[in-house]
């Protein structure tokens, strides 16, 4: 698993990466009540807003972790946003993307670095 400073995790699955938010982020957000996902096929650049997520407290944007193309989105979480709180690092992934450059993953934090980052 790789991690961004925006509290996203990335897991490599063949030639795509699965992206979601970390347990820590889900805890900080509080109860998630709304998720808006991008459309599959969307080309995205790093740090572009791709997902809107609203909790009982506030709206937040999830940014594209790297450059690439969204190839699949996890539609069930739109109907059941509470899954994001229940299983953010498993069932409640947000989207899968094909990276423009897989080696860009190397720039992201590994688990130890992320744990250190969130303190």
């Amino acid at each position, binding site marked *: 698993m790789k991690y961004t400073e925006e509290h996203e995790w990335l897991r490599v699955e063949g030639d795509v990466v699965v992206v979601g938010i970390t347990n820590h982020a889900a805890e900080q957000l*509080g109860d998630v*009540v709304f998720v808006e996902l991008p459309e599959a096929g969307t080309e995205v650049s790093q740090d572009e807003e791709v997902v*809107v997520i*609203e909790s*009982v*407290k*506030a*709206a937040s944007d999830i940014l594209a972790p790297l450059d690439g193309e969204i190839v699949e989105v996890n539609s069930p979480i*739109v109907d059941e*946003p509470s899954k994001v709180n229940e299983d953010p690092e498993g069932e409640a992934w947000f989207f899968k993307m094909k990276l423009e450059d897989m080696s860009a993953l190397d720039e992201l934090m590994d688990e130890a670095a992320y744990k250190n980052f969130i303190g």
Partner: protein
Amino acid sequence: MGDDLKTTVLNDLHVGLGAKMVPFAGYSMPVQYKAGVLKEHLHTRAAAGLFDVSHMGQVILRGPDVALALETLVPVSVAGLAENRQRYGFFTNDAGGIEDDLMIANRGDHLFVVVNAACKDADIAHMRATLEPRGITVDQINDRSLLALQGPQSEAALAALDPAVAGMKFMDVATVDLLGAACWVSRSGYTGEDGYEISVPNETAVALAEALLADERVEAIGLGARDSLRLEGGLCLYGHDIDTTTTPVAARLQWAIQKIRRTGGDREGGFPGADIILKELAEGAANARVGLRPEGRAPMREGVELFAEAEGGDPIGKVTSGGFGPTVGGPVAMGYVPTEKSEPGTVVYGELRGKRQPVQVAALPFVKPGFKR
């Protein structure tokens, strides 16, 4: 900065329960406990929730014709309030706007009022400046905490400490002995549920909170759920849904202005902004506070602009508070629209992230009140 925050007597209890503390109106207050906003909200509607509202201002007014004196500041019939009864009111200004909303209780030889935390210093200064010259003393009560117990099982939980509270009706007030302390209890609250507000001596506040929390029906509830509960209850949050620029008529609070204070009544007018407010009572206001149900799932929060059409045109109003309603199971909001657009069922459009989404004007409250009348 954080060091300047005041704390309530229950602070250690909150922290011990795992509360997330946030600054609110100059106080460090629990926004949520471990369960989180959603579960706390639903628990309150299903059973009973305990809220620390000790940051609010508690004030005793005492003196000759104190009710008539207070009537010079509020468009409410205070003199017509029976002993041991409470009613909702608001301080108005010369422009007909609202300076704060408050609860007024007739406790026999004095009035007991509760005002918002953020406004309490200004309210007390306002009352001192206007009421003291009339021989009224204005005493801020600092040696008492304020707890709210809300939800359908509040009666059973509080009656376990003193059965007398079960006999109280909505908006009754009484002095009740709880854990040996004389508590000033009202059957009221701000969640749309049955419940009580309890003014308790500081030295007994922690013990009382712990005794109530020991009841398995009762959970500690933070300000986050307090906000979603009052929003579903159609209740105004001062500084958001009502403020110095909104009149009581535009805010649809005219029910709180009794006939006797209106045109033709025995004690007509005589409060700040009476000319404007009485005129609006007769002729209506240009805008109206309404309930709003955004279509779809996206919450519309405070500040979202409302439009008459799906495209083009200038904003016709805006959302003044909004979010997700856990009991409703979807987004709910309140806001202001032109009066001709205020009929329930009317469709307006809220602009969210650059896109206009349909919003239906809805009757308030969003949930059926559980008051024990």
